[in-house]
């Protein structure tokens, strides 16, 4: 099967200058990552703040040009698309945002918000659009009388439903959702997760799901990629990465989650904090915090290589560390 979305060696660098007389420096937000996403599949991208996961979302939606590397959608290279081709690409790739408060225009009514992508892409007559908007609203669990209202009249969960309906309006083939449930309350979060799950099954969409919450990640993803300082450090099927992890950072992330059963013995704590992406550590980017670091980790960057079929990790010592543990 051909991948729906294929990104190769993607790099994004930002020039930063702390003040007018400070030197210009280069911040590497995404440092050469490969991603493939197949139709009907959900890929979960996880990592802590500042790891570059939201930059990846912007690059893949074409909202921001990559510094180098290639992105192709449905076999066509993004950089080679002409203007109409780009418009079509933007119709087929839609985004769901984290903050349901700032991602909806407060001056537009719900029906205008959901219908706007249809109008922009010139789909249907105004009457057909109205019908489509009504269908979408019902599908995401809004009632028809909600359509005349403004965003401020809704709770966070309801607003996220509006954002989801807007993303679905033009029948995209790929949805990129950047932390779609992390701003929501617990009981509402479950409602939205169920909605996303249903839509996924119903519409056969490709889904790129970006989150820092590994329990939500486990629940929604088929495949998982873990990012650290702009690199993918481990990727594979959900079970492989989350149950048989081969990278110490994945282990640290998983063990840092406070557990409902109150068990704390499992905890492996990372030392210190995320290094500045302006001055990334030499060798393995995680070696400054890694509980298992060896001298070689400070000099040799480990490649992301397949350790078992379909399961890759970027660590010199995966086998040594985790063979004894399992």
């Amino acid at each position, binding site marked *: 099967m051909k991948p729906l979305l294929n990104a190769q060696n993607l790099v994004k660098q930002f020039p930063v200058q702390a003040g007018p007389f400070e030197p210009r420096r280069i911040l590497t937000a995404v440092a050469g990552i490969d991603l493939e996403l197949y139709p009907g599949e959900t890929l979960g991208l996880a990592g802590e703040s500042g790891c570059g996961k939201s930059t990846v979302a912007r690059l893949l939606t074409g909202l921001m040009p990559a510094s180098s590397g290639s992105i192709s959608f449905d076999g066509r290279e993004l950089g080679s698309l002409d203007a109409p081709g780009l418009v079509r690409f933007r119709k087929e790739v839609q985004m769901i945002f984290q903050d349901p408060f700032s991602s909806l225009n407060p001056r537009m009514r719900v029906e205008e918000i959901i219908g706007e992508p249809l109008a922009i892409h010139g789909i249907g007559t105004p009457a057909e659009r109205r019908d489509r908007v009504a269908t979408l609203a019902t599908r995401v669990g809004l009632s028809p009388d909600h359509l005349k209202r403004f965003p401020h009249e809704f709770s966070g969960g*309801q607003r996220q439903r509006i954002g989801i309906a807007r993303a679905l309006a033009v029948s995209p083939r790929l949805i990129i959702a950047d932390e779609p449930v992390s701003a929501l309350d617990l009981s509402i979060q479950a409602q939205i997760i169920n909605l996303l799950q249903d839509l996924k099954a119903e519409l056969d969409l490709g889904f790129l799901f970006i989150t820092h919450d590994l329990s939500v990640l486990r629940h929604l993803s088929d495949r998982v990629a873990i990012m650290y300082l702009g690199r993918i450090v481990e990727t594979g099927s959900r079970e492989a990465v989350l149950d048989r992890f081969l990278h110490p950072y994945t282990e640290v*992330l998983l063990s840092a989650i*406070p557990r409902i059963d109150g068990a704390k013995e499992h905890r492996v704590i990372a030392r210190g904090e995320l290094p500045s992406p302006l001055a990334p550590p030499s060798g393995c980017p995680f070696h400054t*915090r890694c509980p298992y670091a060896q001298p070689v980790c400070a000099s040799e960057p480990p490649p992301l290589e397949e350790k078992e079929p379909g399961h890759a990790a970027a660590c010199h010592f995966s086998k040594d560390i985790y063979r004894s543990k399992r």
Partner: protein
Amino acid sequence: MAALLEITGLSTRFKLPGGELRAVEGVDLTLEPGETLALVGESGCGKSMTAASIMRLVPPPGRIVSGSIRFKGEDLLQLPEDQMRNVRGNRIAMVFQDPMTSLNPVFTIGNQIAEGLRLHRGLSKKLAEDEAVEMLSLVGIPAPRERLKDYPHQLSGGMRQRVMIAMALTCRPELVIADEPTTALDVTIQAQILELLDRLKEETGMGLILITHNLGIVAERAHRTAIMYAGEIVESAPTDELFGNPLHPYTRGLLASLPENAQPGERLATIAGSVPDLKMALAGCPFRERCPICEEVCATHHPGMKEAGPGHLVRCLMVP
């Protein structure tokens, strides 16, 4: 042993154009020295307003309309303002959720930590500075003497939260109220901060009220847990008991809706609807419209707290 904090019948309301909003309604809480009490609920349930009421920092147009807050036997609500100022930050301290907005951006952190010491303990500038260095190293900030001259924006989120905790602890308070202390932080840093709070609690014997919506943190850290809904405590019990034997339909719903309690890909249990309008007159049980087990009587009778087991209180008419 006398309780460190004993709240009875606390109600805090806001006079708004559309009516009176019941932010906190008849809250009873007890905290022993050295104990961690978790206050859990969704946004708007009144957990932060309960904290603000304890500190007597309810923003207008809100006010405390009834109840008592006994801190070591003394009713804080009866204290004159100047004596209350001596309690605030000195004997009861708060750690807020967002360290970026709760620290003053135009003062160095050394200045901000020393402020409490000079104000409450009358230390000289020099002594206060030494004490501030000690506090910073206690909370695990490397090179604390140099950090004193830093402004909040020069520190990372985790470091700022450590500074907030250092500020809260400078005067060795007997009670710390931490309002979502790790919500703005990444999980690896969250684990470090929670370990730190636990360690400091052991060292100083202070009581801790931990306000959070993260049930995992509660399960790991709290001795006792109180679940709030629509301004009221609907269930409270020792934490193990609460997670092992949840009785209130809201508590059960919260626990069931966690992705951790479901198989991957499985539908999550949800609590239908959303939180009721707290400006409406209180008739019956505030949870009844979302409740899977409610009956007719719930619409007319407001449930009181009843004891369902040792130390296990629940506010539900349907629980025997």
